């Protein structure tokens, strides 16, 4: 019994430094944001509103649209970047020549600052002198206006707009290397003995992947899915810089709000329109959606995760 207590106390001591930091700089702000969301809070704190900010969110067409766009953004990026990342990791896991160089190539976007990344892609998508239109001209196809185009890919008013789709493409490009590297570390942790044993049993190629490699990778996959989804749902920087930022009027989400995903909505209402309370409510509502999603995700996937 005494050993148990001792271990518990020791355990808490182990946890203390991390918990202190996370508590002070992640949990406390969340509580503070919750508090702000209950007030009319512009630059200064105003009257107590109770849940009225939340009520207003449900009637705010812009907010609802931003939630919809977030779903489109997540669904359009996360599965692709993970699938391609896994593919790249599998290829890189083989004994290839120039393996180290390829690893670097795929990881390069992720290590580059988003300021520089946005600048480069802004150039690629520039309607008058950009590379994308350069290629279209070369192919004899009509040019497009890319980041300025609010018309949807699948119909004028259906998301994603060409602008958002362009940003989604860049998102996939940017995060692919991150997934590849984490998958790669997962792959290397699968011991050769297991794989060799499977091979002796006659498993190979796709079968080996489906029955051995993929299940053994499942903790990594599950974790990446979680992290990537949460990351994409709260994704901000790339969309902000490429979606027009402050250059037209307001805080971005251009053109016609078709790139205003939820995190951008929150940022715009918080910092540009200085509706601190209302934006906090939106942030919290967004957080709630993420938690529900995560819990659901847990239910669906956790059972299938194989902890080897």
């Amino acid at each position, binding site marked *: 019994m005494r050993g148990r207590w001792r271990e518990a106390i020791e355990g808490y001591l182990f946890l203390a430094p991390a918990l202190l930091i996370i508590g002070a700089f992640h949990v406390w702000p969340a509580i503070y944001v919750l508090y702000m969301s209950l007030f009319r809070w*512009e*630059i*200064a704190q105003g009257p107590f509103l109770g849940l009225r900010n939340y009520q*207003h969110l449900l009637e705010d067409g812009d907010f609802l649209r931003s939630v919809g766009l977030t779903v489109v953004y997540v669904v359009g990026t996360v599965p692709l970047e993970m699938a391609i990342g896994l593919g790249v990791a599998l290829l890189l896991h083989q004994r290839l020549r120039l393996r180290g160089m390829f690893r670097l190539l795929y990881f390069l976007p992720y290590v580059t600052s988003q300021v520089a990344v946005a600048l480069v892609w*802004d150039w690629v998508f*520039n*309607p*008058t*002198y950009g590379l994308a239109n350069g290629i279209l001209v070369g192919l004899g196809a009509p040019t497009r*206006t890319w*980041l*300025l185009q*609010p*018309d949807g890919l699948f119909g004028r008013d259906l998301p994603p707009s060409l602008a958002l789709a362009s940003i989604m493409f860049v998102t996939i490009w940017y995060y692919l290397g991150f997934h590849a590297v984490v998958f790669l570390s997962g792959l290397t942790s699968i011991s050769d003995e297991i794989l060799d044993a499977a091979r002796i049993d006659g498993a190979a190629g796709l079968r080996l992947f489906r029955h051995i490699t993929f299940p053994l990778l499942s903790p990594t996959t599950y974790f990446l899915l979680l992290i990537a989804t949460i990351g994409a749902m709260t994704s901000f920087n790339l969309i902000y810089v490429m979606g*027009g*930022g*402050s*250059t*037209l*009027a*307001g*805080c971005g*989400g*251009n*053109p*016609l*709000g078709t790139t205003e995903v939820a995190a951008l909505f929150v940022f*715009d209402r918080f*910092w*540009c*329109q*200085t*509706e*601190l309370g209302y934006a906090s409510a939106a942030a919290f509502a967004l957080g709630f959606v993420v938690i529900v999603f995560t819990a659901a995700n847990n239910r669906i996937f956790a059972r299938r995760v194989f902890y080897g």
Partner: protein
Amino acid sequence: MRLRTLSVVLALVFSACGAATPAATSAPSSAPSAAASSGPATAAPEPAVTITFWHGQSGVLGDRLKALIDKFNASHKIQVQATFQGSYTNNELQTKLISAVQAGSPPDMAQLTGLADVANFYKAKAIAPLQPFVDGPDGLTKDQLADIVPSFLDDNSLTINGKKTIVSWPMSKSESVLYYNPDILKAAGVSVPKTWDEFRTALQTVKAKTSFTPLEWTPSIYDFFLPYLFSEGGTALSSDLTKATFNSAEGVKALQYEVDLVNTDKTAVVTKGYDWQNPFAQGKIAFAVSTSVSVPYIEQAMPKDHTFKVGMAPLPAGPKGSKTNLYGNNIVVFAKAPPDHQRAAWIFLKWLTDTDQTVAWSLASGYMPLRVSAKNSAAFKDAAAKDPRLLIPLAGAPGAVGNPASPDWPKIQGPLGDAVTAALLGRSSAKDALDTAAKKADSILSGY
């Protein structure tokens, strides 16, 4: 008596430094502040305090501002500690200021982007209106006040208790102007357009006679729609700031004009941010519309073997003359600052507004001098003789209009920008687009 002697001494000190106009400190003020209720107001000695100033001027402009402030610090007991806190065009400075206000630790003074932001900070009781200082013993005489460009003062004034009150102070002001490439205009045989009608014809001629892009610009509401609207006699919001008026007949005409250029005449190409600057610098575009401080950016992008002199002109005129949008920033003094810091901040701002300094800052930065009389100063005359483009923003200044004084304006500019985009894309008629935005604006202005 003693106070008065002191003020004379102070005035001597000031004039000896060549820093401040002596009249400012020795003349009795026209509207005495509470402290000076008995007899004519006199200035107390300058407080020996260090005040903090957060600004958004980086790079070369930051260095030049620092040089100017060093000059102030060398000649005054007040020490100004200025720090760059992020660009103000990119919302970084504002983010920091809002955080600092929440923490209860704002600087003594800071740059804000425009009147709407000033109104917003005032509404939060975060800033101290400057009118008492303007009227007080350290204030400006009537003549001096009349010498500040009136539209700049309007851009720093709010109506408080039914009275127009100076809340903040102008510092770096610029405005929308028309840029042109003289070589292309010559090739097309077009002269610089004076009215919107002439402008439209000029664009058509450039298109017919050359292979250049007649106009490439970012259709921000500030660089076309609002100036056109004002030149037709329209306004953005009603004078009591409770209703949107940009969907008036004048507004529809203004937006239709843009739509016609882009969709009917096909003489204008829409771009994003400052992306027009590079092709313009390369001599591919005849006209552009943007802020008057763009020349150095265009010039640094010019190929060295193919330069030209960037042409600058006031925006074309409508029935009410040439109107333009006032850009740049205003300085606010924070309510949290102790009284002697507030007063020190004002003394610094007044110094900055003196002809010597405002001309120096204007020539160093490309922003407009704040005084009407500045263009008669020797330094400015010399510079303008070398580069007459300096006079163009000044000519436009009387017709420059800043943001509406509503703290809700930042919420309205988004929907209004969307209206412009929707109309330019042909998604809805100019009238429908503006009506939709106006409906949204009205509901924002009435609060929820």
